[in-house]
């Protein structure tokens, strides 16, 4: 019987210390040990991206990483994206742009989109599609997902009523 290992991982700003079997996948640790079921398993074969989380701020597929490899690192899941009860801009944009239907791909799409925008804050449409090539959606046809990511890159701010303005327009309005 393989021996278990003690790991300490910071997940969504909370530190956890746990004994895990080396073969425990990071996604199982998140879902089954920490109850963070916002991160989903689609394919379980590194293809679909549904399980995408951030490891030290960079996107990874948590079905293709061991929990022991995350020891000492910081993990952010979709459940850590909203701050102070307010959705992150990408979450709000997916909502407003109708970028989801069944929603199964959405946590992974948002985590990968966030990583993409961190590396390239002003992507072209082609760069967004390339950046999401490891995330599959069976419902939307991707069009509205790309639109949602583009709108955040362009600085569109959504308020609760769904009315959108761009940061630039608001400023211009103030000047004129």
């Amino acid at each position, binding site marked *: *019987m*393989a*021996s278990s*290992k003690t790991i300490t991982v910071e997940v969504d700003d909370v530190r956890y210390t746990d004994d895990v*079997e*080396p*073969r425990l*996948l990071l996604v*199982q640790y998140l879902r089954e040990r920490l109850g963070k079921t916002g991160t989903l398993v689609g394919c*379980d*074969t*590194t*293809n679909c*991206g549904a399980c*995408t989380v951030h*490891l030290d701020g*960079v*996107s*990874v*597929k948590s079905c*293709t*990483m*061991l929990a*022991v*490899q995350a*020891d000492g690192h910081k993990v952010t899941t979709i459940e850590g994206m909203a701050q102070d009860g307010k959705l992150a801009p990408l979450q709000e944009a997916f909502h407003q742009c109708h970028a989801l239907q069944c929603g199964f791909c959405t946590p992974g799409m948002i985590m*990968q989109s966030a*990583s*993409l925008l961190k590396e390239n804050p002003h992507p072209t449409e082609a760069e967004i599609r390339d*950046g999401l*090539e*490891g*995330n599959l959606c069976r419902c939307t046809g991707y069009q509205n997902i790309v639109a949602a990511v583009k709108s955040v890159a362009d600085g569109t701010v959504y308020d609760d009523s769904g009315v959108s303005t761009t940061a630039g327009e608001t400023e211009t309005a103030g000047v004129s």
Partner: protein
Amino acid sequence: MIPSAFDYAAPATVEEALGLLAAADAAGDDVKVLAGGQSLLPVMKLRMADPSMVVDLGRIAGLNGVTDSGDSLLIGAMTPHHVVATDPLIAQHVPLLAQAAATVADPQVRHRGTFGGALVHADPAGDLPAPVLAAGATFLISGPGGQRSVDAADFFQGYFTTAVEEGEILTGIRVPKYTGWGSHYEKFTRVAQQWSIVAVAALVRVEAGTITEARIGLTNMASTPLRAAAVEAALAGGPATADAIAAAAAHAAEGTDPASDLNGDAAYRAHLAQVLTKRAVLAAVGLQAGA
């Protein structure tokens, strides 16, 4: 899918890792080295591999990153694809590698998968072996008997087989600088996030309109990456014109032994090798590929 149970160690130094590999081997354990895990973990989840011991290189300092050593760059084996694709030294001196690394898989896999891991894995459809072969890189390998270096021409030995023996670790890859050369990696796939059906890596030096040297690597045209020697010979000394390049590229399938699979049969791959070689060399010398 859950891998079978295994013992796990994450050593802090190469020496410690080599000691663990030797001890596990002596104890009769089936031991595997873990790098980025982007090939090994999927295979373990499918239980096509079930090591009883895994030695993770992820916590060894000094295996990750790119350093300038004069005439060459030293790329640490644990450098992720994403870093190879974006590193300024690679962009300046061997942009071919950056371009090839950027075509591997998808962003998440590129964040974890490593340069060394992909080269030791040596998938015939993998995108890094052919550029590394074309560039004439040297592989730095550490083992129980100390360190040795292996030329790229001797590194890739067969289907998923390299010069790295059991009990050894690839620590780095030394790549000569090709500053001022033209280069291009031309990868042919049908869908996003796909392995190469065929791909061609071209490094070309042009002086006053004449190709003085060409180094061409082929991906997925045999069980190992190949140099397109006949194309290289036909290009060298000739003019950097579309006609001369097209004539040379017609030799691209010579000496190859491509597989037939669901993506295409051997004859189709032979055709692709010629078309993609033409496109890669045209792009490398700054001419647009014709329709």
